[in-house]
């Protein structure tokens, strides 16, 4: 199936404890561009290879974490359809007026069973410094810092993983690419969902607290870019979790690290291409080490416990 309906992750609004430090991290280290700072204090940023106006919104708050993750939908008809279907499934859907974020049309938001708020929207203004479209050079803006190409995906933690997974699969048309299951009971511990040709656009891990953020991920070009990002992390004393390494799941190459408010970020490169006819790849929990950190072959303490 061609990509219809939900197209891709569009943006994430992240809570930070100190805006000044956060801007240095996301702009100067990860390499995003600040698009605007609005009267309510929220700061809008984008990666150099994104066409749309913004993809990361920072909101200063006394508690770190994620406010919401938003997906872009192909047209108003689809948005109306999803709105109706989500309501029919028993969830509250709240409309968000156009302009609540600069350059963004109307959105709908709903809270998934894992306690996370998600948005769907159709319209966002194009950036005036996104990728070129006429005899395009590889970039219009010179990539800086870790040279993040785009906001790629989120991994979120919460209790009712099955509920959120079902909502995304049954209503929003996502596919499951991989799962980690308990060897004995078959209970799904982690699930990787895609609405596209990527190995994952959203991942979920079962956890005893709802609404938690594990990481916000940024695409970088390749394994060399992962190395260069690692150099920057040491050079600027950025708190690193693990990596450079590879995930068994998605086969992407990765570093996990933390922003100055303790929100985990990832730089991610590679990963296989997914097609909707692919069988689900299953990992037994007894092999979860290799699934998550393919070279270490074991989880670190932080993977299951450290979230914001």
């Amino acid at each position: 199936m061609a990509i219809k309906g939900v197209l891709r992750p569009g943006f994430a609004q992240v809570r930070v404890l100190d805006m000044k430090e956060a801007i240095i991290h996301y702009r100067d280290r990860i390499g995003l561009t600040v698009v605007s700072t609005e009267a309510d204090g929220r700061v809008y940023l984008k990666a150099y290879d994104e066409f749309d106006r913004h993809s990361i919104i920072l909101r200063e708050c006394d508690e770190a974490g994620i406010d919401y993750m938003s997906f872009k939908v192909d047209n108003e008809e689809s948005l109306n359809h999803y709105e109706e279907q989500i309501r029919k499934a028993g969830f509250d859907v709240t409309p968000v007026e156009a302009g609540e974020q600069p350059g963004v049309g109307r959105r709908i938001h709903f809270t998934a069973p894992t306690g996370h708020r998600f948005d769907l929207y159709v319209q966002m203004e194009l950036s005036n410094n996104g990728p070129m479209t006429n005899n395009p050079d590889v970039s219009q803006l010179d990539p800086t810092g870790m040279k993040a190409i785009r906001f790629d995906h989120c991994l979120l933690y919460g209790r009712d993983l099955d509920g959120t997974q079902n909502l995304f699969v049954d209503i929003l048309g996502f596919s499951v690419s991989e799962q980690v299951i308990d060897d004995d009971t078959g209970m799904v511990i982690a699930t990787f969902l895609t609405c596209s040709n990527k190995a994952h656009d959203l991942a979920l891990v079962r956890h005893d607290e709802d609404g938690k953020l594990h990481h916000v991920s940024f695409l970088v070009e390749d394994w060399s870019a992962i190395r260069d990002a690692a150099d920057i992390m040491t050079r600027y004393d950025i708190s690193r979790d693990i990596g450079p390494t590879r995930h068994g799941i998605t086969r992407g190459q990765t570093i996990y690290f933390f922003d100055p408010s303790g929100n985990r970020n990832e730089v991610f490169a590679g990963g296989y291409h997914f097609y909707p006819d692919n069988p689900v790849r299953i990992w037994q929990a007894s092999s979860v080490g290799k699934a998550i950190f393919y070279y270490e072959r074991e989880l670190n303490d932080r993977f299951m416990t450290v979230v914001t």
Partner: protein
Amino acid sequence: MEKEKFQISIKGLDEKIICEEDEALLTALEKQGFAKIPVGCRKGGCGICKIKILEGEFKIGKMSIKHVSLAERKMNFSLACKTFPKSDLRLEIFKKNNKVITIRA
């Protein structure tokens, strides 16, 4: 100018560690490999390195209110990653998620 160094003692342990002024307690603990305090984000967001200061003067940086409430702050609870000594300190480490705190032999 030489940085001032403070002695940090941890409830239940005999050994002491050294922490410089303007150095986070967690940084000193990690650097000296002395007590395996749970290390998470190191930035005040995840709450895993929660401690209580039993004696001594200190200052704190920004941390998530979810993990150390204002009432708890008044009771000298803090996060090791955002606590900076202003004198010798005695503190208690709280483990989270039943992880065992292990001490270097």
